[in-house]
């Protein structure tokens, strides 16, 4: 209807841009978009870009509220990735889940934004696998 072509970015609200840069760039090891600026920083999540929405970009009155929506990062092995992130100090609130078709482990960034490690292992109904 409106001709949506793709998602250009998902905004992730953060209070401390330096801390967030450290987390996304080093702890998660994501590639920074070289075309993003010093106040508007973007990271590549493979199929989509996240943009850190910070007081530097929005002004000093910006009050970040963390998002609940889980951004599901595909990793080869959820438990292995979880162990690595836990060793780096990332907190996972709950036990990992086996949904019957996929493995899931939820965590948050330093600002409380929700992410999950995700790996679907079961084929779809048509027999293909992700």
């Amino acid at each position, binding site marked *: 209807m409106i001709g949506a*072509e*793709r998602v250009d970015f998902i905004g992730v*609200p953060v209070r401390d841009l330096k801390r967030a840069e450290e987390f996304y760039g080093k702890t*998660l090891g994501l590639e920074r978009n070289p*075309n993003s600026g010093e106040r508007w920083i973007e990271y590549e999540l493979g199929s989509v870009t996240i943009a850190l929405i910070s007081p530097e970009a929005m002004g000093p009155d910006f009050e970040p*509220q963390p998002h609940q929506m889980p951004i*599901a990062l595909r*990793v080869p092995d959820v438990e292995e990735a979880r162990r690595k992130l836990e060793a780096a100090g990332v907190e996972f609130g709950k036990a990992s889940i086996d949904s019957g078709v996929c493995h899931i482990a939820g965590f948050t960034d330093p600002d409380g934004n929700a992410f999950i490690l995700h790996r679907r292992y079961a084929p779809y109904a048509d027999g293909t696998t992700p």
Partner: protein
Amino acid sequence: MIAVQRTDFVGIYTQDLERAKKFYGETLGLKRNERSSDEWPEFETGNLTILLTSPERTGVEFSPNVGAIALRVPDVAEAMGKLRAAGVQFDFDDVYESPVCHMAFFKDPDGNALMLHHRHAPYSDGSLP
């Protein structure tokens, strides 16, 4: 470090699954992932899958997303007009023009932030999105 391969989906919480299905499928006109069930409906934006889910399922207390998901459209003003005609309310009267892009901020029926987005300026390396 943990070898992130891609983003499989983003889960958007809704307090009314039927209403949200109608909004994402009909008002926004996103394609339904035919493999997804009515219980866990997914919509395709081109590069990102949106999964609609309810807070009870994962035991969280509902609060709407503030950081917007930016939908690329060919023409922000035109898309804004179409969505307004369909009853969608926008945060500001006019298209917001940054030096590099056009934006229009709105919410889904649950109050989750979305935006129409179109970058018109080239990046510093001369390429365009």
